[in-house]
């Protein structure tokens, strides 16, 4: 076998591994954000999850927000969601 020495075409990254955010022990009285990326089914999915959680007895406050799926969330949306204890994002074509 003849070996050839080549340079890897794959770029280095500085992407850091981040731990999961602390899990909530309860949803009661928490503020839950629902971020809709405006794809056709994303809102339906978020509303279904919220409905299921409430049906299971969880009593929380909802905050909704929406962003264009093809662009980063505007600063105003991020500021709004920072008031939440947890945020649920749906990506659903």
């Amino acid at each position, binding site marked *: 076998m003849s070996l050839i020495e080549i340079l*890897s*075409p794959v770029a280095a990254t500085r992407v850091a591994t981040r731990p999961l955010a602390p899990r909530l022990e309860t949803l009661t009285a928490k503020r839950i954000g629902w971020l809709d990326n405006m794809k056709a089914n994303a809102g339906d999915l978020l509303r279904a999850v919220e409905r299921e959680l409430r049906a299971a007895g969880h009593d929380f406050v909802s905050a909704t927000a929406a962003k264009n799926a093809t662009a980063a969330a505007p600063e105003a949306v991020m500021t709004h969601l920072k008031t939440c204890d947890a945020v649920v994002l749906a990506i659903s074509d």
Partner: protein
Amino acid sequence: MSDVLRLDAERLDDEFEARGWSDGLPVVAPTRARVDAMLCYCDREPHAELGTMPPRHGIVTPEILAVNAVMAGCRPEYFPVVLAAVEAMLTPAFNLFAVQATTHPCAPCVVVNGPIARELGINARYGAFGPGVRANATIGRAIRLILLNVGGAAPGILDRSTQGQPAKYSYCVAENEAESPWEPLHVERGFALDDSTVTVTGADGPHNLNDHVSDRAAGILAMLKGALTDMGSNNAYLYGQPTIAFGPEHAAILAADGWSKTALKRFVFEEVRLPRALWSQGGMAGMFPDLFPELDEKPIIKQPDDLLIIVVGGFGRHSCWLPTFGDTTRAVTRRIERADGTPLRSVRDLYRPM
């Protein structure tokens, strides 16, 4: 500094494919000597960081771009065009993250203007969007390999394009400035005639605009009105900056009847409109209600200047248009220049042996 590997020379293409480093076609082995030859046409420090490329956020350096340009088969003197195209794609307005990661089939289309396009022999005439000329084929292919190996756009992983498209292999043309009756794209966008530039758009593949009969502008304009009213294209839904690439014969007919680029852009804005009777029935009109005004007919661009017009091709009465991803990616034009920001008149001026 790029990692150095020792691989079986006889199985190099299989190895690259298995590692997810290729577009599926055989590659040129990126040896140190070949990469250094490529960097002879770059006056940046080989490990200088030029940014990061989404969605993987690989660190962009001249050396990593040169490795991929070698793999694509670029001649070393093509490298200034590859570098300028990458810098254009990294401009925030281009929104490369979305162009790379979307389910839409868009690919960065590179249009080269100015004397360097002619110096490198980038095809602007017969078959310019197709195969046959090394500069077009390999500059476009280098962009694709960079998007893959630096940006991480592996199909089905971070490139979520549902179907992809052939232009994702390679998508690079020059404008046929010599046979255009109008000022070239880069001059229209504020650069000097003797500047050389690249313009990138996040585009579908070319859609043919065929009219062999009309010998007056009115007939060609009617054809445009029918063809560009294309429900299903993202411009119909989301506006943006599509390109019309007129063949020289169509361009000559339009110009002979007094049609300037400005007038054509206004025509497309005012006359190419999706009728409410159609868009109100379905498609994606319900997704972005604010983008569908209370008009009976919806334009495909938000303002006339959002249309890009170039001349590409040889004889024959064909043109094409390149719909885009929509209004969240904007066309970006970048001058091909030295590291100090002065314009590069000839790639030979950049050559320095390593």
